[in-house]
């Protein structure tokens, strides 16, 4: 009886990884919209029947936290998407591994630059500029003027109508913070954010959630990457997309291989595949309107034309570094505090 129960208990303790056996595996963290994540996985598996992809969607902040927490014992092989800063930070922490893809030659300069900055620990997969989307119905109802510049967002009529993500959990919001600091200077940027705080109804967790709330009319305006706003208006919501007149920052959505991954070979197959023009052409189909990093990829006509947008010279090296990031976040916590004026 005892040996039997011991055997059963031992079996119960060790038996579960059984489910793990089988074809080659790839554990993927996807930090973009869940629809494109699923689309990529489905298409990849259709073309590579020997590789089984396990995908989990995490915002880029969560993904970085998870990869860092697992640093001594990684459970993830590849991290696709999400703003470049946490990818650069992971590269600086040497949590991600060096890989020079044969696809690099086909990529846009900004995507290759991302690889150069990180010592080939990460690479750009798409890019998008920061802006906002506002709900035209609500603005009409309230008789508000369309805000065209950062300064317009301080308008008192917008009280309680703005949503933006919490930079502690969202890469989008951190890019906004860093953009404002580079655009205005640090102290002025925090003055501005304090003013903005009076109008902010809620700091959300996920970066694209604000414009989704705006689309549904739960809020008036969401500060997000413009491609996130575009996908809402393409879906039929009354959302208008704005590029701020003073200039704006942008993200280089990135991809990194995890150092010490369990399935590095499969991860490289996905890595190379997702950089091809064919794979990147899937993005508009899935409602993702970023600028693709492969030069040969078709750019959808709905993608905001980056040549018409005033872009700042975003310093990815400085604002992607851990110390600067920690400093800015600590100051944001202390002065803005994630507390909306409710």
């Amino acid at each position, binding site marked *: 009886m*005892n040996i039997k129960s011991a055997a059963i208990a031992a079996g119960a303790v060790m038996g579960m990884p059984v489910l793990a056996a089988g074809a080659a595996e790839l554990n993927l963290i996807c930090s973009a919209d869940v629809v494109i994540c699923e689309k990529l996985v489905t298409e990849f598996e259709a073309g590579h029947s020997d590789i089984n992809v396990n995908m989990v969607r995490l915002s880029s902040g969560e993904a970085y936290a998870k990869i860092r927490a697992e640093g001594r014992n990684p459970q993830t092989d590849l991290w696709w998407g999400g703003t470049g800063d946490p990818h650069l930070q992971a590269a600086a922490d040497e949590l991600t591994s060096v890989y020079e893809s044969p696809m690099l030659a086909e990529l846009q300069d900004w995507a290759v630059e991302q690889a150069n900055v990180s010592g080939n620990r990460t690479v750009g997969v798409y890019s998008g500029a920061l802006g906002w989307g506002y709900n035209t119905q609500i603005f009409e109802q309230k008789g508000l003027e369309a805000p065209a510049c950062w300064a317009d967002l301080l308008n008192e009529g917008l009280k309680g109508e703005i949503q933006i993500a919490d930079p502690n959990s969202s890469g989008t919001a951190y890019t906004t913070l860093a953009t404002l600091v580079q655009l205005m200077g640090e102290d002025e940027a925090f003055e501005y954010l304090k003013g903005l705080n009076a109008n902010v*109804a809620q700091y959300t967790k996920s970066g694209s959630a604000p414009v989704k709330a705006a689309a549904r009319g739960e809020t008036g305006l969401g500060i997000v990457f413009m491609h996130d706003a575009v996908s809402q208006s393409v879906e039929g919501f009354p959302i208008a997309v704005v590029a701020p007149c003073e200039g704006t920052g942008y993200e280089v959505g990135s991809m990194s291989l995890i150092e010490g991954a369990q399935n590095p070979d499969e991860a490289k197959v996905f890595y190379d595949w997702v950089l091809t023009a064919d794979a990147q052409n899937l993005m508009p189909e899935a409602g993702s309107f970023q600028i693709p990093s492969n030069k040969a990829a078709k750019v959808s006509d709905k993608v905001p034309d980056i040549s018409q947008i005033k872009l700042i010279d975003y310093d990815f090296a400085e604002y992607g570094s851990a110390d600067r990031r920690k400093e800015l976040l600590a100051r944001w916590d202390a002065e803005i505090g994630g507390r909306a004026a409710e």
Partner: protein
Amino acid sequence: MNADNRRLDWILGGAILALLILPWYRIRAGFFSFDWLGDFFAEPDLWPGLFQALIGRWQLWPIILLTAAALYLRLRAPSGAGRGRAMVWIGALGLIWLAVEGLSVGTRGWNWGLLEASFGEVDGQPAFGAGAVVLSLFFTCLISFGAAERGALKGDAFVLTSIALLILLVGAFVFYPILSIFTGAFQDFDGSFTTEGVRRNIADPKIWSLGCLTGGACGVAWRTFFLAICTATATTLLGLAFALVATRTRFPFKKSLRLLTVLPIITPPFVVGLALIMLLGRQGTLTQAIYSVTGIELGRWIYGLTGIWLAQVLSFTPISFLVLIGVVEGVSPSMEEASQTLRAGRWRTFRKVSLPLMAPGLANAFLIGFIESMADFGNPLVLGGSGGVLSTEIFFSVVGAQNDPSRAAVLAAVLLFFTLSAFIAQRVWLSGRSFATVGGKGDGGTHAQLPARVAWPVIGVVSAWSLFTVIVYAMILFGGFVKLWGLDHTLTLEHYVRAFGVTFEGGFRWTGVAWNSFWTTMTIALIAAPLTAAVGLLTGWLISRQTFPGKTVFEFVLMMSFAIPGTVIGISYIMAFNLPPIQMTGTALILIVCFVFRNMPVGVRGSVAAMAQLDGSLDEASLTLGAGSGRTLRRVILPLLRPAIMAALVYSFVRAITSISAVIFLVSAKYNMATAYIVGLVENGQYGVAIAYSSVLILVMITVIGGFQMLVGERRLRRRPVPPAAKEATV
């Protein structure tokens, strides 16, 4: 050869085989894939314990020596008290050494800077594998067999082994994780000791500020506390109203009122919050209706504490109803009749006799509401606004870009302090008071009807609230069938197709996005349910049928694990089981273990209650006829406990499907659970698919519970089935 030696032979054989054959360390691809057999000789990490020791892992020598000592005792010493004492010592030393070496030496050498300074460099080691697990079971059995030889508990080895194994499991899967939260708080990223994080967080005004009393903002601890008090008050009052209506009025729909009690068990926890947004959000149906009729703009009031409160009251009122209905029914009518005979009016009787007799039930319902609200994670996540409550703050301090484990630990300690105090208060309050009014004397008669001045308001409140609940649930079902909630209300099956589509082109394929997490959830729930029931039943049997020293402490500790909020469990599991000695993150096993130890107390309660109905003379008869206690349990007690077993099975199955707070930390790319997946959908604003998925889950659970009801329903003639202890739902 006597029984003492025979069972000792078995475990010794197992231990020696494990040391010689089974890989000592964990195998990444999984033990039962048996891929490791191919590389067994080439790869030193796969070697069994003895060979690991021979190639320089000196930390394993004590284990081998202790096993050899046990072997020597078996061969040279006669069984008896002396050998028993030695065996207990060997077992205890073995377990202690396993824990010490496992915790000190990690994947990259010493885990703590201090040890490296004192002992020099050491090679890293992977996590415990098959060999180490068998050896720890061996040492545990050695302790219990030794105790049996010394004559403890009449030398009943089965009972002693059960107790020892349960203590080992609870220690490893409840206490070790909780402890590791607190060590994590004091450990730096690279493993050195630091108090900086704790000092920074423990006095943080964002946690403790009482500014809201003077017009500012309050700390998250106090906000959670106030919220819990408000929720508990409201759910207790509403629950009482429901219980009174169900038992003491001529309200026509009493039967359907009881259906409400099933709701909290089958509802995924954030669904109510979601439905509230669709109903009362700024663009919600009700908000818009009010606007078009009266022109009043309600705005965004639902986001924040008010909204969370409303969602929690909706979710937890049925639980409080379930607790109170028994109490309200239990008040003996003869007391009330006596009061009326003494010329008290109905109102006076109600106020002076009935209500005071319900006091313990009310306190119980209040405390349960308090604990539920404190531990709630789903509703605050969906409705939280920017402020958040303790459970969500813990979540974000781990997954947010701050990644501050010491903050999580401090917040978890605060939350644990609140819930454990409530739990202990409940225990203290309920013991030491007697409100028994159901005595052996026949008390005929029925309960007095409520006095009219109470009855009408109570019926009004109950009807309104029931209507609200029905609307909320109708919303949940309806939301899955409209194209875009709040914008385009064309009916569509699109969301169901997206979530649960299948295709027959090129062979049958599950194309829906939900299938993956759906099957994982079902598999894990199906594996966890029998294990939960088994562990719960065994524990229940020990508690109600055996006497052993420290039994009250044992019982209290087991029940206490229920008061630990899911978020705390989740975070403690990733902190404890991500690194050696026990490494389970990213596997299905961690989810199963988490469910088993979280839901076990329900099984315990169920089986204790059921066993109280079985006369002890049955066991005695079996024991007198020469069966051992194991055989008695298997052949006599278990068959009589069928309804309780079924209830425990169904309950743990359903709980495994609906829980979110612990699960959200433990899911991985490969093993994603339905609730975690739905939360992701909600975050992304894909309400349609989220609602469709939730509706399917609710249907699955109704089917399971309904099937179970039909199965045990037939037994009702002879014996009342034990209702699942639903008052513990959704912590």
